[in-house]
């Protein structure tokens, strides 16, 4: 072997390590994924399609898309603003803000859900006021969106901060000296530089928003056809012994995840090309 010098380990050790990695990957990733799809189609594609087109499933899909559709744009705007602030400026409390952005990663989603119950539940801090004004937050759409926004808060910002940090602010400064205004700097200088990272962050954020279970479960109220998101609907079906239907919905979620991963790879591929082109 010509490139033997690259690795010092002997061939058997290398094969052992590679084999181990493959076994672990198969056991923990491929097998469960395959099981979801096999179980979903075990009673035929008719059951599969019916499970996804019945009213409760449709409403769950709709609610999931709606929750993601609202929380992802919100968190994109927030993530952009936060990353811009943190990387282009130096100010007091900057590192505190950074840790604050990471908070949703550190907190268990169940706690996140319970906090909202504590704040907005009938006996919560704002409960009496909400009740007096006839506003329903917990066990309704606003609660589900709040929980989703909270849990997916850091994704875009976390993706952008290292990228923008490494790029520095030389180009922006140059643009400013040439007379560009704030918005022009952002549109023509910052955004083109970060677009791939931004897209990547949005994809991750979306994947999590659609898949979130814990926090949403606490604030959902589990009303069939109304406040059940797709992950919650999977649990409901499973508890009703409708295993094929449960796995059909799970397969849809898995498909969404695979789609996200596919798009992610595409983004990486494209961004790699554009980087080389520079």
């Amino acid at each position, binding site marked *: 072997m010509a490139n033997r010098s690259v690795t010092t380990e002997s061939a058997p050790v290398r094969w052992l390590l590679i084999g181990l990695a493959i076994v672990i990957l198969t056991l923990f990733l491929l097998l469960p994924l395959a099981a979801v799809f096999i179980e979903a189609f075990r009673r035929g594609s008719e059951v599969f399609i019916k499970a996804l087109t019945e009213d409760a499933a449709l409403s769950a899909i709709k609610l999931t898309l709606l929750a993601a559709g609202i929380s992802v744009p919100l968190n994109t705007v927030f993530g952009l603003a936060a990353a811009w602030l943190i990387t282009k400026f130096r100010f007091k409390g900057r590192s505190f803000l950074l840790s604050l952005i990471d908070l949703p990663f550190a907190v268990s989603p169940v706690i996140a859900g319970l906090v909202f119950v504590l704040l907005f539940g009938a006996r919560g801090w704002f409960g009496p006021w909400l009740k007096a004004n006839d506003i329903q937050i917990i066990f309704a759409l606003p609660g589900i969106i709040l929980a989703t926004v909270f849990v997916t808060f850091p994704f875009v910002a976390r993706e952008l901060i290292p990228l923008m940090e490494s790029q520095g602010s030389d180009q922006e400064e140059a643009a400013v000296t040439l007379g560009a205004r704030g918005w022009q700097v952002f549109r023509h200088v910052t955004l083109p530089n970060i677009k791939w990272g931004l897209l990547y962050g949005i994809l991750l954020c979306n994947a999590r928003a659609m898949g979130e279970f814990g926090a949403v479960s606490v604030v959902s109220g589990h009303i069939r056809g109304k406040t059940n998101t797709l992950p919650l609907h999977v649990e409901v079906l499973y508890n*009703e012994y409708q295993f094929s239907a449960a796995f059909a919905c799970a397969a849809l979620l898995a498909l969404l995840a695979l789609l996200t991963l596919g798009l992610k790879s595409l983004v990486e591929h494209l961004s790699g090309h554009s980087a080389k082109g520079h």
Partner: protein
Amino acid sequence: MTVAHPATILGLVPFSSSFATAARGANHQEKDMLTTIRVAGDVTAQGVKVAEYQDGRVTVETGRDRVTGWPVPRVLRGALAGLLLAVAGIGAAPQAVQAETLLNVSYDPTRELYREFNEAFSAYWVAQGNPAPTIEVSHGGSGSQSRAVVDGLKAQVVTLALGGDIDRIAAAGLLPADWQSKLPNNASPYTSTIVFLVREGNPKGLKDWGDLVADGVEVITPNPKTSGGARWNYLAAWAWAEKHYGGDQTQVLDYIKALFTNVPVLDTGARGSTTTFAQRKIGDVLISWENEAYLIEKEFPGETEIVYPSLSILAEPPVAVVEKNTEKNGTTAAARAYLEFLYTDEAQELAGKHFYRPRNAAILAKYSAKLTPIPLVTVDKDFGGWAKAQKTHFDDGGTFDQAYGTK
């Protein structure tokens, strides 16, 4: 399909209005064609349209009778249903405010019963000349469901596993303290009891409560702190032990300790325990609701069998109208009718069919081949009522904590 009104996208307008408009537009061209309507939840009906109302609802002639409900646009039945619904009906799911929406917050094993019952009630309510109600259901551990209602889940009726859980809602001021006297039979339209479910052939020879504490027997039961069914399980075991040991409290507590030493998984709700036992195949015996046990026999034929112990408990799952919530929505009459309908012959038959013990003696007799009569203790006579039983056994520092904590 018309373009969704901007307000709909913002979630300001209940979704039915935009859909109804679309459906009405479509129906102009196809007057004689069949119209599909949504009556309640998953229930749909199809027929020739005979009337159309201001709020978008239509009445159709199905051939058998006339049914009123929300029209389902044709496109929604197509293959692209999911996507279209998601794009056009955005803002829809959660706030579809309709004249009479009843939310029934129930416990775990009633899913199948109420699915059928809701259809029966809808048909009955419409036959009474009312618009078709939308009936929503939420299921979970009885204790957690009760807590959710207290925390603001807008239930119109609660149908829970035990009185204590409704008492908690009453304590929060959402319904009157004397709720149990508002309906016949302690406000329990059906009863049930606690039985054992063992593996096919009963390989460990489990016949009675005493056998459950033997070495190497794995017992599956949910957590009495969160599950109503588990509390019935616990009290049934306690009643047997009390009788067996002649009332010696130390021995009874030792028995309970030994019982929970044999529990490998403590799920939060009855349905969780059932899945643990039946689907995940953990444990030798499931202490279970009678109806749940028969349901498993039906779902997993030939894998399990039911054992009736020498003594069990009369479980009275109660129902109540959450008056504070219904008054606000003006649904008190419908909510009352919903619960009263549980006592009709039709509903009692449904209860028997789903392996609950109907209160109606004649209907119960019809199902007695399965619902075996066995000696049953009651909470009121043998445990001094739920308030006392809850305090003695399940509140912090109660006998369950003593038994489980010092394991």
